[in-house]
């Protein structure tokens, strides 16, 4: 049985339509016109217990709105949602016992009090038995290395320390599902790695299900086997990361610096994707032409100063999917846009 199940989940926000200018502002004060904005449009997905899924999409794609419906703080306009057998918005408090949440940009720790007091408060909130609390505290203190700053007021912690504290806070009550919203934002490389190791370890040791929302695709590459891509509130891809790599990862970019302008520069088997002065970017598919063959073609017809080969990064792949839509015929989900 899946631990998270949504069917045709939809959320429409209604907001006051604003007219520009002073006259417009005065008008809004008295007569209000509403406009509707669809934030989430018919998302159906299902997650099994123990999965670690990357939930990816550009700003305003509807990621946060989905998460808020899963945590029970937003009521869906239509469609159904269930988390660990509970309908979140109908039973917010019961759902809250099953979930944990970490926001990279917003701490749930008590700002003015020592870190450990926030943990004690959470122990009271969730009614965590003394034995289990002690066990979890020992465990997290060890792997997150909290020992040095447990007694420090949260406002004096560094961002990396605070995030580690927030992770422990979200996990103390042994939630089944944990939502991570940009958990590594603003962290340095070492702190990022510490957080990623922690997530992977908890996922492996405790079988906790994680939904990771992030713009840092290095997080996703390191942690997630499966990704769910959304754009404009619609699901555009749901499947293994591998499939995206196979579909789009065969493209390479050859960057060539020409020795002179060559206004009619063109090469068979490669597409010019950018040109700045004498520097030309050529995209090619390594299934149709090897890099070696392409370089030979270029040097036969043109004089060149320099040449570099770029590997595709997940980030550029995903950027391409946002622009072009996902168009893999073999994918289970059809492309949202032509």
């Amino acid at each position, binding site marked *: 049985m899946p631990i998270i199940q949504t069917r045709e989940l939809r959320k429409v926000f209604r907001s006051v339509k604003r007219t520009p200018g002073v006259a417009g502002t005065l008008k809004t004060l008295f007569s209000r016109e509403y406009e509707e904005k669809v934030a989430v449009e018919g998302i159906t997905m299902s997650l099994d217990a123990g999965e670690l899924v990357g939930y990816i999409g550009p700003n305003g794609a509807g990621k946060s709105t989905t998460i808020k419906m899963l945590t029970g*703080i*937003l009521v869906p306009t239509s469609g159904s949602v269930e988390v660990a057998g509970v309908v979140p918005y109908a039973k917010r*408090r019961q759902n809250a016992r099953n979930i944990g949440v970490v926001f990279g940009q917003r701490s749930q720790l008590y700002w003015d*009090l020592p870190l450990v007091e926030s943990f*004690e*408060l959470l122990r009271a909130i969730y009614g965590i038995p003394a034995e289990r609390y002690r066990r979890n505290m020992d465990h997290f203190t060890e792997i997150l290395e909290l020992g040095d700053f447990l007694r420090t007021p949260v406002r004096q912690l560094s961002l990396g320390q605070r995030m580690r504290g927030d992770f422990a806070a979200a996990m103390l009550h042994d939630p089944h599902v944990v939502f991570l919203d940009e958990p590594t934002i603003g962290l340095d490389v070492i702190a990022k790695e510490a957080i990623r190791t922690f997530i992977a370890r908890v996922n492996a040791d405790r079988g906790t299900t994680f939904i990771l929302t992030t713009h840092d695709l290095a997080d996703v590459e390191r942690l997630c086997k499966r990704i769910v891509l959304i754009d404009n509130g619609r699901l555009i891809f749901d499947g293994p990361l591998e499939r995206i790599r196979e579909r789009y990862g065969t493209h390479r970019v050859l960057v060539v610096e020409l020795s002179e302008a060559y206004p009619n520069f063109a090469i068979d088997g490669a597409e010019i994707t950018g040109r700045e002065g004498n520097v030309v970017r050529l995209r090619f598919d390594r299934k149709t032409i090897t890099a070696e063959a392409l370089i030979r073609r270029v040097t036969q017809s043109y004089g060149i100063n320099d040449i570099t080969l770029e590997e595709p990064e997940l980030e550029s792949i995903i950027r391409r999917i946002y622009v072009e839509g996902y168009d893999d015929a073999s994918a289970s989900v059809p492309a949202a846009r032509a």
Partner: protein
Amino acid sequence: MTLREAAVPYVEFARKAFSREATYRMEVFTSIGSLLIRVYLLKMLWTALYAQNAAPAGVPLHAIITYSTVALLMSLILEVDGTRLIRDKVRDGTIATDLMKPISLPLYYFSDGFGQTVLHAFTIVPSLLLALLIVHVDVPPAPVLLAFVFSFALGYLVNFVVNFLMNAVAFWTLETFAIQISVRWISDLLSGQIVPLIFFPVFLQTVVLSLPFAAIYSTPLLIYVGTIRPDQYLAAFTIQFAWFVCFSALAVFVWQAAQRRVVVQGG
């Protein structure tokens, strides 16, 4: 889950609010300082007014000074707005994290406010002792004092729910300043905090005494100075309690509507 277990988080919220407030020591000292200045100014004001006119409504000068001083001491507690948290949290979006906890938010805010109140209550004793250097305060017999404390507790509850309702408006408007300031002005005047309501013209008295604001300051204060007599206590308590029940019902309704329309800022 037993009632005792269910109460644990809320007791903890109150304790945390207490420790949190205690970290702002300067604020505690300035609130005592400003109180003493107001005690002195009101003493001067009433003395000057009484020198010009006969005692209104049969209230002698020492009684009105007692009334004003006790009102100011009460304000140390009643001006703590525990539910201010709601407005702040709706505005900066942290209400989302609270909603992701298995707790009742109204009870959380009440406990937090109560924790703050307890800290401020500790300032009453030094404030009173210092105020006694400036003014003389009449002390009523023990039974009256007891009735005053009980009535004050009821007033505290009414005050909490009124504040809760005002701050809950933030769910719709995000901003509550205009409402707060208007209600504060009206309530300062109509609650009897500054001028006893029995000084109002007779036709107005009937109106203001039946408004909810009177239940906050006026009722306990009039019990303290003896204007409300022991045989009228029961009626006075009943009215205060009725306002509490009435506003609580409204608060439950508003809270449910608010939960249905959480608009979390940012994120």
